[in-house]
């Protein structure tokens, strides 16, 4: 009976494959073609328009700066938070639950939350004014205050996106048996040495996943930036959005989309190489 049924797994998998094929591979091919064609003939015109645009350099720079600022801070914070809850006996779940609240909020909503804090009539100015630190409303989010704007966006992104890193790291930390740390302690390793020589190497797989996921998401940053800075802080996805909707130029928008994909793929490859996971060296 069962021998003749070898097609069943394939049949069960088929819908998901068709679904992904239709909604991912087809648009991907279309986008690629859109980016490197002009009126149906191969052309680099869209690429040229993209790189010669006034905002191109700034959006590349801004996206990379934001990624470089946000991702390391998030990894360090997630490691710190994960190590702290690991030491707790009671209330651990509650703390984790509270820490992951930002995950349940859409990124645009997160942007609006931080806008209500940082805008001219926002909570930050109210508090600063109440404390007598400022005498009148201060603008933080304009093109005249690029550093404050950058910091504001970075803080909002860190607030919004650290939880997902922390969840992956906590899952990784839970996989490390406590005997490893106890053995290291018995043989004289300080808490810092235990962390760097035992814990970190043992959570490499989690660290790798978290880095890849978080970096790819950081290159795709858009809604939070859009809510806080509008076009004062151009980023790659923002430019793709503008070319698509404001300028109605789908070709250049596609060129941006392809560029973001290439950067994400490159980052992933770098991580796979740099944070190598050797199954032979895992528990």
């Amino acid at each position, binding site marked *: 009976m069962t021998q003749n049924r070898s097609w069943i797994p394939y049949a069960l998998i088929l819908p998901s494959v068709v679904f992904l094929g239709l909604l991912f591979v087809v648009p991907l091919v279309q986008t690629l073609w859109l980016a490197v064609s002009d009126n149906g003939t191969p052309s680099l015109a869209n690429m040229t328009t993209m790189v010669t645009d006034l905002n191109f350099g700034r959006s590349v720079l801004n996206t990379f700066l934001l990624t470089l600022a946000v991702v390391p801070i998030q990894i360090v914070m997630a490691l710190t938070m994960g190590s702290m809850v690991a030491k707790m006996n009671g209330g651990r779940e509650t703390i984790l639950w509270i820490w992951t609240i930002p995950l349940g909020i859409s990124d645009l909503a997160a942007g609006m939350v931080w806008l209500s804090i940082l805008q001219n009539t926002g909570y930050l100015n109210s508090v600063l004014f109440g404390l007598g630190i400022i005498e009148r409303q201060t603008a933080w989010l304009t093109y005249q205050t690029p550093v404050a704007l950058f910091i504001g966006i970075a803080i909002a992104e860190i607030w919004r996106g650290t939880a997902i890193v922390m969840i992956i790291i906590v899952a990784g930390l839970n996989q490390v048996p406590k005997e490893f740390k106890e*053995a290291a302690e018995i043989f004289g390793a300080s808490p810092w040495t235990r962390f760097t020589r035992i814990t970190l190497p043992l959570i490499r797989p989690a660290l790798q996943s978290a880095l890849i996921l978080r970096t790819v998401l950081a290159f795709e940053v858009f809604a939070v930036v859009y809510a806080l800075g509008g076009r004062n802080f151009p980023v790659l996805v923002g430019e793709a959005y503008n070319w698509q909707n404001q300028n109605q130029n789908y070709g250049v928008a596609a060129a941006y989309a392809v560029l973001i994909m290439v950067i994400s793929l490159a980052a992933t490859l770098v991580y796979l190489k740099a944070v190598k996971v050797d199954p032979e060296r895992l528990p």
Partner: protein
Amino acid sequence: MANIVIDNIKKSFGAFQALKGVSLTINDGEFVSLLGPSGCGKTTLLRIIAGLETSTSGDVRIGEKSVIGLLPKDRGLAMVFQNYAVFPHMTVYENVAFGLRMQKADDARVKKQVEKAAGLLHIEPYLDRYPNKLSGGQRQRVAVARALAVEPGVLLMDEPLSNLDALLRLEMRTELKTVLQEAGTTTIYVTHDQTEAMGLSDRIAVVHDGRIEQVGTPVEVYNHPATRFVGGFIGNPPMNFITMPVTGGQVTAGAQQFAVPAQGGEIVLGLRGETVERAPTGQGLDMQVRVAEPMGSHLLLTGSILGQPARVILPATETVKNGETVGLTLDPKRLTWLSPESGVSYPAAA
């Protein structure tokens, strides 16, 4: 090398008292087992000695120096864990070298010590490998080598053989004994396996319900258990306990009479199953055999004596049928007498 004094250690987890005042002195170079069923507190005691757990009260002295409040690394000890805790991301060499590296030993000393420990445990061929590629027994050797490489004053072992299969356990047990005898390290060995404790130890401390019930050499603990619990826990089959009437300081078993440390009432006879000899019925105690199991090396009888459950061992040459009544004579020198109320045994007659 160091002696260890455990002085009235108590430990509570909330309302639960895991250790109710434990005292034990271990001599320099001695191998002592903490033997008891799971949950008796033996591992907690070991972890307190190691410094991985704090005691509620009491003192631990290693080499005359109180170590309460010291970090594990400042106690001059090494430990072998039940699940080995061999670091998977380091080669066997780096695992064995770990303690020395933490002590900032120079490379020459590390190399010398690692080679010495690896030689002792026969793991030289694996030094460049990762533990993932090793069997359980080989990993356990790495864990022991790692502990011995730092030449600790005290070696703590927490059920080190319980994750190995039966055959390997027997092999490693013999080997551990050889290796540790050679190293001469003071060792505390936690186990729930009484054959391991019997085979390895200079002395056994039987732990039960947060207390030490008896400390003695394996032979003492086996032949003269201090309490009913010890007699029942050690030995396979466990000691038989048969309540018997006392008249005028004497207990009568068929034609045999024994002077006992009680004048009247009842007393409990602690009887090791293999100390009896077959005799005609009525000579000593008669046993109603329910099941006779020929084990090859001996014959195991299960049934009852004076209506109380009993297991005895006869030579393999004997034949007994299920349901038969056999006569057994007792060896007066190998009997233990216990109080029926407290379950504590009377001192062995000199």
